[in-house]
């Protein structure tokens, strides 16, 4: 196997392993559009990172977090619904990113690679970032698991039972920001949500517990990465989108399985 293909595979697997379990929470909490909004703001992070000359991935994570906090603050006014606010934030930050990039005359970037990913160009350095970020996110999620699950089911009940729900919510947003930052290279900011949502949605039909759904989502994400890369190599299709199409095919396949089989596959 070529080196660049191996790096692509390793990078994709790292992202999928973290995106699966985190995506399960995004599905349970109905935050798909929220994840999408944070991803859109990623380009602004890249632009700011380049303008201020620090690591673009840190820029992305920081911008995502700022947007998340902005949303929490904006939600306090109760005039505009959350989905309206998300729409405003998503497209404002994406456009602001594009405008900022235009001001950076000395920098020429390949916009497509940021929007749709450039998994075949993953460098060894990128791999450290991906596995470091994904590992950190997974370790934090494992520690956060019980209180986050309790708060996901009912925030006030969890709070009465002693869960610091505000801290937990903030930590969860931080994890999403980290995963978006590391996933950008693989599928790009416009497709990141699919890697969070589709494997988790596929896993739902086979899972009997929150844990099994999260683990299965990670596994299905990995399968999608493998299949997508193989298809991309075989038919010379764009790699990031191929991974997403593979994930969608797995979802379709899962939906078509008969009920009897579904119940016994995974416990």
């Amino acid at each position, binding site marked *: 196997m070529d080196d660049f293909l191996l790096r692509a595979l390793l990078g994709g697997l790292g992202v999928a392993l973290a995106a699966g379990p985190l995506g399960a929470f995004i*599905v*349970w*909490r*109905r935050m798909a559009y929220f994840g999408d909004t944070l991803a859109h703001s990623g380009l602004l992070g890249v632009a700011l990172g380049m303008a201020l000359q620090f690591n673009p991935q840190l820029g992305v994570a920081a911008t995502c977090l700022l947007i998340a906090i902005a949303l929490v603050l904006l939600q306090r006014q109760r005039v505009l619904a959350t989905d309206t606010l998300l729409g405003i934030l998503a497209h404002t930050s994406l456009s602001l990113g594009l405008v900022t990039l235009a001001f950076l005359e000395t920098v020429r970037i390949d916009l497509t690679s940021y929007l749709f990913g450039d998994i075949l160009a993953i460098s060894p350095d990128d791999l450290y970032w991906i596995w470091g970020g994904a590992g950190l996110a997974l370790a934090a999620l494992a520690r956060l698991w*019980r209180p986050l*699950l*309790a708060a*996901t*089911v*009912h925030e*006030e*009940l*969890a*709070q*009465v*039972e*002693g869960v610091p729900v505000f801290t937990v919510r903030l930590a969860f947003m931080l994890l999403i920001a980290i995963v978006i930052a590391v996933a950008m290279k693989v599928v790009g900011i416009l497709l990141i949500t699919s890697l969070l949502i589709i494997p*988790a*949605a596929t896993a*739902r039909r086979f*899972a*009997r*517990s*929150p844990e*099994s*759904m999260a683990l299965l989502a990670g596994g299905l994400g990995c399968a999608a990465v493998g299949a997508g890369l193989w298809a991309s190599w075989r038919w010379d299709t764009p790699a990031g989108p191929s991974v997403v199409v593979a994930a969608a095919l797995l979802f379709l396949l899962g939906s078509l399985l008969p009920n009897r089989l579904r119940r016994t596959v995974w416990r």
Partner: protein
Amino acid sequence: MAVNPLPAPCASSPAEPLLTVENVNLAIRGNPILQAIHLQVSAGEIVTLIGPNGAGKSTLVRVVLGLIRPDSGQIRLKPGLRVGYMPQRLAIDDTLPLTVQRFITLGAPAPRERVRAILAEVGAAQVLDSPVQAISGGEFQRMLLARALLREPDLLVLDEPIQGVDLTGQYELYDLISHLRRQRGCGILMVSHELHLVMATTDQVLCLNRHVCCSGHPDQVASHPAYLELFGLDGARRLAIYHHHHNHRHDLHGAVVVEEEPHG
């Protein structure tokens, strides 16, 4: 405020109430929601908040639980008090695979046998391993109650405990709550929107419409002018219809159960 407390078999020293709410005021964006609220719950006592929609019942419950800070006034809990809370309207997303046993232990881990025992206590042992999305409204409320009881609470706070339950099931649940109070001797603060359903169960009623309109023993409240004004003569007449003695009741499956100790 304890106008007419019934003697409670398991009550500890009645001297110190479990919960005291003193002169609580709360306004949300200039809109007064709670005004000069006083309230007390002692061990073994059931206090019911009734009132129309928007009367501030759930808000008062949230203030008592410490989820909302009042603008002024005091909430005093007996030191070391354990509170069990049963929230209103809990919808669990279909995408979350969760069994009843798992739901009950979300707040604190507990061995399976203990969860089974508490579910049996609330009459829902049969759903231990069912997905939470697949159980009936009555079973769901019992599951919530079981989670609150797992904490061995001194005070139970129940926000509309009969929501989504059919009429027979509603009496069943109130009987159960009454039974739990006798069995465990805990104090209970609950919210209901209709007095006639809780007449037999409750010791004290607070009729709430942003302020306490009237309070006291359910019989007193039912004939109080402020109550009649708030709920209208219709409500009062319905009360007369429903306030009668049952010589039997039905269990979750509809079978007739002979009453051991008559109430009414």
